[in-house]
């Protein structure tokens, strides 16, 4: 119900936003949405006339989301009074549950202790935030357009970062050198055009902001940017403009958040099938700008396969194709200048995306062999153990007895060593018959290689972990443990070598840099392709005794990236380059490649209005 409420706020209210509110509307909204609407914005401060125009604070995600960590404010891991781990809130399957094994795993894996705490500061230190550089002429012109904006500190800070470790760490106990000077909330493609025109006219730097889930330092403001930096928040452009059931496409505004898009399409019986791990928060425009990948890409495809048409506002004008043809041979595909441009060329405003009927049947499975269902993930042993640590407390003695029996069967009877076991989670999707047929195929393969089906329950938990795992980092950070995930793609024949070498490199680098406890260094295959796989690494360590943990962390991560590249892995499968990985881009795409990108940038944005300095 809570989710529905959220949906209501997001999807119903926005359509009426920016209007002068009548008292009636106010009260309705307040009673329905309760605490979510607790702040107001004035659009046109005009003291002389005393006329204020209010809009609602759903503009402001920070009221619903943590300002210094991942996800919803109400959902987090804590250690309760009994010292047991618990996941708060009501949003997830795991919410409200006690996780008895987590504490031991946490202490054993990291050498961490509940006594050694590193709590974040409780509120932002506003004096740390640099004063905004404002371009008065731009501001005057912007006011005339009546597009809402703000230069409040909370708004600016919230859009100054993504979710890299160093960014979250800076929120918890550090500071940012440069943050956006103001935030604007355009409501439509034409408003974006107006903003970009004004930005060009007044030489203002624009950084598009979607869901803020970047993990490539893409949202960081260049510290030496002297111009006023405007964060262009696309969150108000969140409507589905039309659905074409004949061609199975939907035309959607780019600011829509993944889960909203999916939910709204579901109402009409459709889905996109694009489910990146961040889909609760990330936006369609963000997916396009970073070449995102969803976990069910085996059936639905990655973003580049899903997109039919893109509209983007650039300093040169609007770029879009003239028709919605499913494929064309019209020279190099200009969509590929846009996908992966990471906000350096313009703002994606509207996208036509393929849709599919909602699948009749879904089934989550765990097996020990690979095949090609909708999604497949293969975890190493460390992750298997980690997943185990997140098993909730069971309700009855009977279930606990059953669990014991299962464990006995697997370890003693079947002879699996819990210290060597690895797990694949599979997701089948389609009509019932096909799913069951597929499933049988997979089990046959599994049986051939001594694998074992672990049941749908385990499978579902595996996928649920995808969404809660990001919350876990915040818990770690309360107890001297920092970590991050990073990814790559690599040809099949090198997957094993790459995984082993990168994990080993991480362990070795930690040792050399004085990390006192062995790190968690683990990986899993999260996507499969005909010619290779996407590999995800999780890396975390206990930083007690280290003076500058973030610096050490970054050195190790970049060593790991070097190792990935040396072993034939790519610079990124779907996280993007941003600023975090741009020093390797030249090596990755050659001098000529860089030259091509530069000349595109030079033509499209000669004055570097979109000056987030990603990629190049």
């Amino acid at each position, binding site marked *: 119900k809570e989710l529905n409420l959220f949906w209501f706020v997001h999807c119903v209210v926005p359509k009426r936003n920016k209007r002068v509110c009548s008292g009636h509307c106010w009260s309705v909204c307040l009673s329905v949405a309760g605490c979510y609407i607790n702040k107001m914005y004035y659009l046109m401060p005009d003291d002389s006339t005393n006329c204020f125009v209010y809009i609602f604070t759903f503009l402001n995600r920070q009221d619903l989301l943590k300002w210094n960590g991942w996800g919803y404010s109400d959902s987090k891991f804590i250690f309760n009074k009994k010292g047991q781990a618990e996941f708060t809130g009501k949003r997830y399957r795991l919410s409200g549950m006690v996780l008895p094994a987590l504490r031991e795993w946490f202490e054993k894996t990291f050498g961490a202790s509940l006594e050694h705490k590193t709590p974040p500061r409780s509120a932002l230190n506003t004096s740390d935030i640099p004063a905004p550089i404002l371009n008065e002429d731009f501001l005057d012109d912007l006011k005339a357009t009546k597009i809402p904006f703000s230069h409040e500190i909370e708004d600016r800070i919230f859009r100054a970062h993504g979710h890299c470790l160093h960014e979250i760490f800076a929120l918890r106990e550090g500071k940012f050198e440069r943050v956006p000077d103001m935030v604007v909330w355009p409501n439509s493609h034409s408003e974006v055009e107006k903003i970009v025109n004004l930005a060009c006219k007044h030489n203002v730097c624009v950084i598009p902001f979607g869901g803020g889930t970047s993990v490539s330092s893409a949202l960081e403001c260049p510290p030496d940017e002297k111009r006023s930096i405007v964060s262009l928040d696309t969150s108000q452009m969140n409507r589905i403009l039309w659905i074409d059931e004949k061609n199975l496409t939907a035309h959607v505004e780019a600011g829509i958040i993944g889960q909203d898009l999916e939910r709204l399409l579901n109402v009409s019986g459709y889905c996109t099938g694009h489910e990146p791990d961040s889909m609760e928060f990330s936006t369609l425009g963000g997916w396009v700008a970073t070449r995102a990948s969803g976990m069910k890409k085996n059936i639905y495809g990655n973003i580049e396969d899903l997109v039919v048409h893109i509209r983007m506002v650039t300093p040169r004008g609007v770029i879009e194709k003239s028709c919605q043809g499913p494929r064309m041979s019209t020279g190099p595909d200009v969509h590929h200048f846009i996908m992966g441009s990471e906000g350096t060329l313009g703002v994606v405003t509207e996208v036509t995306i393929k849709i599919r009927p909602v699948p009749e049947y879904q089934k989550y499975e765990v097996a020990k062999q690979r095949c090609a269902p909708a999604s497949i993930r293969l975890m190493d042993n460390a992750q298997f153990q980690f997943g185990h640590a997140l098993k909730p407390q069971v309700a009855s003695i009977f279930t606990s007895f059953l669990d014991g029996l299962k464990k006995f069967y697997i370890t003693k009877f079947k002879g699996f060593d819990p210290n060597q076991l690895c797990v694949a989670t599979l997701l089948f999707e389609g009509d019932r018959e096909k799913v069951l047929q597929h499933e049988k195929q997979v089990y046959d393969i599994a049986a051939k290689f001594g694998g074992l089906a672990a049941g749908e329950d385990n499978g579902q938990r595996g996928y649920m972990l995808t969404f809660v795992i990001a919350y876990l980092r915040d818990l770690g950070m309360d107890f001297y443990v920092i970590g991050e995930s990073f990814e790559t793609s690599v040809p099949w024949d090198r997957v094993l070598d790459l995984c082993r*070498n990168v994990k080993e490199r991480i362990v070795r680098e930690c040792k050399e840099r004085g990390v006192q406890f062995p790190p968690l260094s683990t990986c899993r295959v999260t996507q499969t392709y005909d010619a290779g796989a996407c590999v995800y690494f999780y890396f975390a360590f206990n930083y007690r005794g280290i003076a500058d943990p973030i610096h050490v962390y970054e050195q190790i991560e970049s060593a790991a990236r070097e190792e990935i590249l040396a072993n*034939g892995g790519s610079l990124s499968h779907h996280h993007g380059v941003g600023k975090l990985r741009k020093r390797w881009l030249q*090596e990755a795409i050659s001098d000529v490649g860089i030259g091509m990108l530069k000349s595109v940038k030079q033509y499209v944005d000669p004055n570097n209005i979109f000056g987030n300095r990603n990629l190049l």
Partner: protein
Amino acid sequence: MASENAYSPQDPTLKKRDDFEDVLEERRNSSDVKYAFRCYTPVLYNGIPPCKASLLKHTVLKSDHVLFVIQQLSKESGESPEIIHEEAVEILDEMAQNLKLSVVRFFAFMLSKAFKTLFQRVRVNEEGIQRLQQAIQQYPVVLLPSHRSYIDFLMLSYVLYTYDLSLPVIAAGMDFLGMKIVGEMLRMSGAFFIRRSFGGDKLYWALFSEYVKTMLRKGYAPIEFFLEGTRSRTCKSLVPKLGLLNIVMEPFFKGEVFDVSLVPISISYERILEESLYAYELLGVPKPKESTSGLLKARKILSDDFGSIHVYFGHPVSLRSLAQGKISRSYCNLVPRHIPVKPPKDIFTFVNDIGYKMVRLQQENMVISPWVLVASILIQSLPQIDINHLTEQTVWLRNLAQSFGAFVDWPDHISVSKVVASSISLHHSIVKNTGGRVTLIEEKQDSSNLEHQLFKYAATVLMCASYRNQILHIFVRPALVAISVHSVGSSRKEEIFSYFSFLRDIFSHEFIFAPGHTVQDFEEGCYLLMKADAIQILKTDILLSERGHKIVSFFLAMFQPFLEGYQVICRYLSEEALEGVTENQYVSAVRKFAVKLLLSGAVKSCEVLSSDLQKNALAALLKLNICRKTKEMEQVVVKVNRTAVNSVEDTLGRKLTPLKTALARL
């Protein structure tokens, strides 16, 4: 590539080295049978047990790399893949090791017996063993011993067995297989056999490299091979051969292993079993083919005393740390890993540098026996030297060598004269002390054949030289600086450097100089001389000090045989080989030319007769483009640039300073 990292002077005497333990001591006090049958449970890499020889062969034959090459050859030659496959099976059968613990135990027993009679002590640094044991558990290990004798690898396996370490598989030359039963037994104790030359044979190369790489990747056992490629007949280190080194590094370049540990091992002999054999070989008496009966004849040496052996396991060197920041491995990323790729130039340079680095690490831990010092003095003072003078000089040299960082094994609590006397008596095959006069042994010569007499004498000189050679790596850098200071006749630093760099180029195959390290070598030499108070280094000048004269003249005498020898070769080339000389005839022609000069008394040093020196000189001249090879009627002919050769000869004879090259690098 390395010239950017400047030489940072470090007092060589501060080098820390481990202590030794005698492994024979326990053998003398307990049963050899029990020892041979004791429980042998070595620690393993990743816990992987050694692989069955047949399984290994199968893996290699079924590897993508070998299958690919077979396909390719089949396409090229039109031969069916099955036939090529058969051929591959044969090659592999000829090559593969077949480690059998029972044979190892047999060897353990036999070698215990043999070593106890042959040697006084076999001393091993146990800390090195511990380091090795740790390395074995972490990453695949490559053992790189020095190679001065047949028994090197027997000795090494014996030591490893004694300390309960994994037995290595050893790359051995095919000639060992000639020794019927013994060859097969070596195979069963872990040797695998490679042909000496197989340059163009793609199938052989594929099988061989895949065989080595498979063992390394799977980590079945440490791999052992000799960087120098062959036994050094002169007891100087040989320039590294890179074939096998390339192969063992490839799995790292391709990311198939995380790291590889390279372990330099220095095996020093107080007296070398093959000493006279080597001398005759160098003089051109053909080497007796390795045969079982030959080995049996060698039994007569069993009654002789060969002193001590020192086996020093150096610090394992991580290939990964060596490669860090020096090379990019991404060249392997664009081609499937089973298809052979020619590595780019920087990889080649890197492997070459590592080769030299490893040889230098071997040299660093070579133990220098008192006899080496005695021989160094003696060979400068032929035909005879007074025993007291010899002793005095030996002590002087010992102190100098130690201050230059030499690892001298000088017994404590024994008087100097006793040490010298016992050295002389141990080497009774070379030297004798008659009434206080020390001379080389000379067999009674009835024949009036002067040439024959000369060769007999030269053999003894070469034997003696082979011991002096063991200390040259300590002195070569300061000595070449000292010779340069002396020869240039000017104190200008840049002129001295320029002459030094000329000598270094000319002797690039004679001594181990890491490529590209000219400046560092020069600075190291200067630093050591300065430390010995031999020179003063000013801003632009280098001045010889009072004390320096003795050192300089000692070094001049020490390296005179090489300076003189190279001049003789230049003379030969410019006087007799103007039309070119075939590669096959070169050695005998030079020898004939040198004999003439020696007999006439124009040349003093017999060492010019050493084929090793002759070949090294030619290799250096070829490298400097002073000679070049051409192919004429199926024969390789060496063509000579006469002016250039003459200039080298003159420069060596100090009549002309060489062109001022490489000044900018100072």
